[in-house]
């Protein structure tokens, strides 16, 4: 019996020993590690930037990790920064602009200020503003979320509208056009997901407003742009111009399969639309409509992200030099990622390159990139603050009531109250 027992003991000991194998060592010196969340878009773009730098600096290598989702990256970053442990964090991390202030203000000192070494005036200013705290900018802007009104020119034509009819219009005018399109073609104007506040946010930003005042306090009940945006959003539903969808797959599925006439969205959707080669020539892009209030422009933003350098990086000097050389200095690189990845960067001088001047037959031969870069320079800067996602949740909670015809002032008050509670 003892013999058996000792054998079992040995098995257990082996199992225990098996668990304790240590794994890969931390990033070696001379290796710049980067966290990104989409292999084909920001992953391959960063790999390409790395290859350009390595060609001139053979001692620097890159390790781009694209295996985590954006939510995963946020969870990891937040846990580690809260725990005060920087072990295993990358040198560069990609962060979406509307959450940047939260990280910068919650974890002072965790990120490296870059405005001392890199000239921030080279980039679209609203992107720089999103990552600026106390006069210091902490990011190198990456992709722009400059918006456009993507539309099916064939449907609009059938309803009797030309490109000129969609140029620099208001959202109210778009609703009038939508009614005619619905009547003539039977297609709803657009597809909307009630759990996504993207359209409301882009309307609000086109008027230079956001959820917050300059001092960080809530700007909801007295926010004329937000009120107008919510009213407009409700009108889409009340005029029966919406195909309701739920989730990303349905959202993209509706417009890529020709079920709706227009898509107001960030430029990063281009690749998804162009993936349907059979629709070539049937799409066109107009400037995003503006809100019918003072100061609103036909340019806005949705999403977009930037590169941040962690202060814990062992290779700070190389990392900053890399960002400066490639991301803030190489116009040709931006032509390349535009053609290959459909990535519209935020470096203003890049628009003078050949790729940005080219026209695109998919969009009826229009110089779409030149258009987007024009709009990019007009996007109003807003302060995304630290609680955007909390207010978003409060807005979402009110949307079902609002589209059913609920009182908007009461809804704004409810949004204000819920957000207030969350922010404490």
């Amino acid at each position, binding site marked *: *019996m003892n013999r058996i*027992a000792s054998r*079992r003991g040995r098995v*257990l000991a082996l*199992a*225990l020993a*098996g*668990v*304790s*194998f*240590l*794994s*890969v060592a931390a990033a070696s010196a001379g290796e710049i590690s980067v966290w990104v*969340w*989409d*292999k*084909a*878009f920001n992953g391959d773009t960063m790999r390409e930037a790395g290859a350009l730098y390595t060609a001139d600096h053979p001692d620097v290598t890159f390790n781009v*990790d*694209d*295996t*985590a*989702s*954006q*939510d*995963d990256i946020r*969870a*990891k970053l937040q*846990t*580690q920064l*809260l*725990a*005060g*442990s920087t*072990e*295993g964090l990358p040198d560069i991390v990609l962060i979406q602009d509307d959450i940047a202030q939260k990280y910068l203000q919650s974890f002072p000192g965790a990120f490296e200020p870059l405005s001392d070494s890199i000239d921030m005036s080279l980039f679209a200013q609203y992107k720089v503003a999103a990552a600026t705290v106390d006069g210091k900018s902490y990011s190198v802007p990456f992709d722009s979320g400059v918006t456009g009104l993507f539309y099916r020119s064939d449907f609009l034509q059938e309803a009797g509208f030309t490109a000129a009819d969609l140029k620099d219009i208001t959202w109210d005018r778009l609703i009038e056009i939508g009614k005619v399109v619905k009547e003539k073609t039977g297609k709803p104007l657009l597809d909307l997901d009630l759990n996504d506040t993207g359209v409301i946010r882009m309307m609000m930003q086109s008027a230079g407003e956001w959820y917050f005042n300059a001092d960080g306090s809530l700007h909801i009940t007295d926010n004329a742009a937000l009120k107008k945006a919510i009213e407009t959003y409700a009108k889409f539903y009340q005029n029966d111009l919406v195909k309701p969808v739920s989730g*990303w*797959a*349905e959202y*993209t*599925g509706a417009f890529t*399969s020709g079920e709706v006439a227009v898509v107001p969205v960030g430029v*990063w959707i281009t*690749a*998804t639309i162009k*993936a349907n080669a059979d629709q070539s020539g049937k799409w066109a892009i107009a400037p995003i409509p503006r809100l019918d209030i003072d100061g609103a422009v036909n340019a806005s933003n949705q999403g977009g992200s930037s590169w941040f350098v962690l202060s814990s990086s062992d290779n700070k000097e190389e990392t900053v030099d890399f960002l400066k050389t490639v991301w803030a200095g190489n116009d040709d690189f931006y032509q390349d990622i535009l053609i290959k990845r459909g990535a519209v960067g935020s470096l203003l001088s890049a628009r003078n390159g050949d790729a940005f001047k080219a026209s695109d037959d998919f969009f009826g031969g229009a110089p779409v990139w030149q258009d987007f870069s024009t709009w990019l320079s007009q996007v109003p800067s807003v302060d995304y603050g630290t609680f955007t996602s909390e207010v978003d949740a409060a807005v979402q909670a009110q949307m079902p009531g609002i589209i059913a015809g609920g009182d908007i002032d009461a809804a704004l008050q409810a949004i204000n109250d819920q957000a207030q509670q969350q922010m404490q």
Partner: protein
Amino acid sequence: MTFALVRRGLIYALLSLAAFISIFPFYWMVVGATNTSAEIIKGKSSIGSALITNAMAFFSQVDAVRIFWNSGVIAIVGTILTLAVSSLAGYGFEMFRSRIREKLFGFLLLLLSIPFAAMMVPLFVMFSQAKLVNTFTAAILPTVASIFIIFYFRQATKAFPRELRDAAKIDGLKEWQIFLYVYLPVMRSTYAAATIIVFMANWNNYLWPLVVLQTADNKTITLILSGLTAAYTPDYGLILFGTVLATLPTLIIFFLLQRRFVEGMLGAVK
């Protein structure tokens, strides 16, 4: 007579509905693995011809051998250790009387109500100080003393005949020998059921491995699947193919231990 028939019909209708609700997502997953992303979005629910394409795409994007090895090691070693530690604790709680036993047990059950997310940051600090971040050890250790499994074993031990222990004692067996040679064989159904529960929990574990496993080559299949779904243009065919693969190990373990699982849930002691 007719009443009995109607009743029976109703029961069958209800059971069929329940079966459909449980089986449909599974069916959808398997069928989705054979369709292209565009077909899945359109809602196609019949077998398609894209299985090979999806498989090739999956294996070219994911280092499958490595990832499944990681998941496998964490799940298997984790299961063995959890069963060893938690069944011992359950045995101890039931067999040894003490004045603070119930209070201690109640306190443990109370701990069940703390969400893991609340313990994550302090846990990370601990593992970081122990220089164990980004190791399998870190992924496994926090799950080893599972309060639920301790509770489960204690409940099952209530049905374990004390006479067996007394008899073994008279024969001169020490406590650890009783545990190994009397208790363990008698409780094998309980162990089988616990194996399935623990293996599944470890295999599917998400939040903690996400935070503690940092480099791409240490990640588990759940983390990789989550990363795939988050791309700007997700390839649903590829994702569902990966999901089917990720489901297989749990399925195999379940079918292997199915008979004992049912016995274990019923608390049978033979």
